[in-house]
């Protein structure tokens, strides 16, 4: 990318979206994108549009639900909410993530031979 922002790791966007919806309650796509950008503190490079591809996938898998509603400033928007299956998936994926990241952490903590 030739950029100092990290590209989002394949498959982690799902986890981010699920966790965001779990933590914040129902949100529209723009809100989710903004939220992830804020948490990432500009360290993440996110193409806002790709959020929607992720959302379609999650809806089809039955992990989130979608419904049209009104935003605070009275704009019509599609609101997404996490489903019960989505929560189960979130727990599972979060555990996976923790396990893998701890492995990577330990690997990175090894001293260098040079």
């Amino acid at each position, binding site marked *: 990318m030739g950029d100092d922002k990290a590209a989002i790791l394949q498959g982690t966007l799902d986890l981010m979206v699920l966790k965001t919806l779990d933590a914040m309650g129902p949100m*529209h796509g723009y809100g989710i994108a903004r939220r992830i950008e804020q948490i990432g503190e500009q360290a993440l490079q996110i193409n806002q549009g790709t959020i929607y591809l992720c959302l379609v996938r999650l809806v089809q898998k039955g992990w989130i639900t979608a419904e049209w509603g009104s935003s605070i400033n009275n704009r019509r*928007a599609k609101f997404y909410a996490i489903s019960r299956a989505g929560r189960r998936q979130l727990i599972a994926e979060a555990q996976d993530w923790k396990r893998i990241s701890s492995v990577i952490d330990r690997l990175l903590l090894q001293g260098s031979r040079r």
Partner: protein
Amino acid sequence: MTRWRQWLGRLWAHVRAGRLDREFDQELESHVALSTDDYVRAGLSEDAARRKALLDVGGATSLAEQHRSVRGLPVLDVMQQDLRDGLRVLRHRPAFAWLAILTVALGVGATTTLFSVAYGVLLKPLPYPAEQRLVRLSETRQGGTVSARPFLSRPTFDAWQQHMTTLEGLAGWNAESVTVTIQGGSPERRRIVTCTASLFAVLQTYPVVGTVFGTDAETPGNDRSVLIDYATWQGRFGGSADVVGRTVEIEGETTIVIGVMSRGFHFPDATTSMWKPLDRTKRLVTAVGRLKDAATVDQAADEGTARSRTAPDMGSLGTAIFGSNGPSRVTATPLRQAVTATIRPGILLAFTAGLILIVVATLNVAGVQLARAIARQKEFAIRAAIGAGGGRIARQVLVENAIIGIAGGLCGLVLAVWLNSLLPKLGPQGMTRLEDVSMDWHVLLFMMALTIAVSIVCGLLPATLAHRVRMLTALADDGRAPASGGLRTRVSRTRWLLLAGQAAMAAALLTGASLVARSFVAVLAADRGYEPHGILTARLPLPAREFSKERRVVVLDEIIARLTSVPGVTHAAATDILPLIDLEFPRSFAMPPPGGTNRPVTVQVMSRTVSRDYFATLGMRVIDGRGFGDADTRESLPAMVVNRTFVQRYLGGRSAVGVTVPIRWSATQAARVIIGVVDDVRQHRAADPPQPEAFACYCQIPEGLLTDIPAIAARTAADPLAYAGTLRDVVHDVAPTASLDSIATMNDRLDASVSGLRTSVTLFAAFGVFAVLLVGIGLFGTLSYNVVQRARELSVRVALGAQSTDVLRVVAGPVVVALVCGMAVGIPTALAAGRYFREFLFGVTTFDIVTVVAVTGVLLIVTIAASLLPAVRAIRSDPIQALRSS
């Protein structure tokens, strides 16, 4: 689970694509609006905010594209696209599309129908549990020369039934035609079966209502019980549950209904509606056995042979029945095979013709498609140039062909269903197992496989061509260069081969049609030893209960006398066996060789008991001595007439008149004197070898007439059927209680006997004509295409001084050669295959010069007709015009 859900979601999204696209647009729009709001709040101008918001989202079009592919099923999208393109291409050339669909439809329809017949008759199991273990058993004696029907003698049957090691069960039956009266209705003639009680256990089929009879019912006088079929129960007894115990009259005897067979039960075929106990004293039975699990057909035959040799000797009766008293032999045949033996060759022949037809149709469509693919080279190249992969283009071509194949297949299915409903009329009369022919899933499967195969074969050649499209040559080429003319490229060689293949197949079909048609004509025209035109025939049952043997003679003589006095009736006669109606049994006796001292010869002869004027009535030729006359009475010397074959086989061809033969027609007459010789008569088929025959007049037999179902024949001056009413009146006057049965002209009987051959002729002729039409169309298409494609080359040739003949040679030469090569392969192949269907041929040799000439002629005429228009166009091509236009 989640995977399935997602897949279904995608499928659903595919269906609602339009709505979801709009919704996604709205969602993006709302996203941009929300984002713009935020930027405005952060202090940007409205325009700048919106621009920045749009930038954040990314390219909307590519996003929508990605969204669609994540959401739906991209494969389906592409397929839909292909389908749309394919349909569009076909719509542009509707004439071509319809012609191709029609071609495939006719091919698939005809072949599917024939498959349904072949499957239903030959392959479908008979409607009995584990029917593959059922075997037909028949007995012959070594030295027996006359053809007999497949029977077991009762002693063999009994001996075997008492000790069965290879069989689980053994049953015997006979088919009979009887007069039945149901529920006080009018008497009707029905085919019934008399069978041993074991039949139902052997077939493993039992009544749905009531029970079967026991072995005790097989003794005479104890046999007054009957099982009826489902249709009779529903139709004549209203399906009432208390049908058991009701009575029907069979041959005037009150018989109790003891059960009803299930709806699909047929035995031995669908024409039989009642089953009665078999009289144990009958000396012959048709036998069916059920093999034990471990036993084979051959083992059963061996056991049967062994049992029959331990059975009590039938003495002279055995000789009379089997034509010899030699060691007996039992053969076993799987029942389904035995039932369909006579019809199998015809069905296989027809099915082969159907397969040839579908191959012609496929080659035809493939050839046309290939031509179109060549014409579309440029289109393919352009597509490839703007980014379509070779695979994509090839798939496009395949899809186009699949559309034709599937549309053709579906139309073919409709055609097949329609043809199936017409089968009772189209097929030969009284076809075996016709009731088992149906459009079931086997047939559907066959039709689908056929359709897919046809689609693939039709599409494969053009698809390969599309796949290998050479972009530069195709685009640089002006599309009218002679590149594909003649036989210079692989594509044009392929097309040449396709045409030659079609010509070969069509020639083969035509050859078959010609051979069968010529046989049919020969069969109709064949000398059968009697004159079938102008004879009215009927059967007159005279049951023993009412008509004693002497009384029958009186009744028949009276009927004959009255008939002869009717104006327009020239002769009338009665007999026990009429050609085309009856199966017969030989009579056998030992005769000292006339004039010699050698060992006596065993004579096997078909005997007929006739009235005086029989030969004149049938139009048989007396070739020596005389026929029966008024001089032959009970008081005169017992006389007999024999046929030509009898004289040749047993009298060494010497003059037979005056020879005394020790044949026992009556218990009181030890011999008869030959008074005349008649020419041989073909009893059933024109191709049957003649059998030795002997005739006696019932007027000279003291006992009277033995048969209880004599036949009456009347020769009339005008249309015989016009005398049917007269015949009925006469019979009613003379014997009011007797009723005539199966009134028909001899010509009609002859017609019915050749209906199988007629079906073959019709089928072959129709297929042959269709194939020839296809060849004509293919030829016309190829030539027209050649002329258009090579217009410039031809112009140059003409400009350089080529004559019309040269132009013709260039345009039509290779194509005509293809046709001739096709014929040169097709006709000899069909003639050589003729020996596999020799039983359909009569009066023609398998190398029939008339057929060769006729087929060649027809194909040449078609060739000329199809090439006329393109040839004229080629000759008239104006060099200036053609050169200027390109």
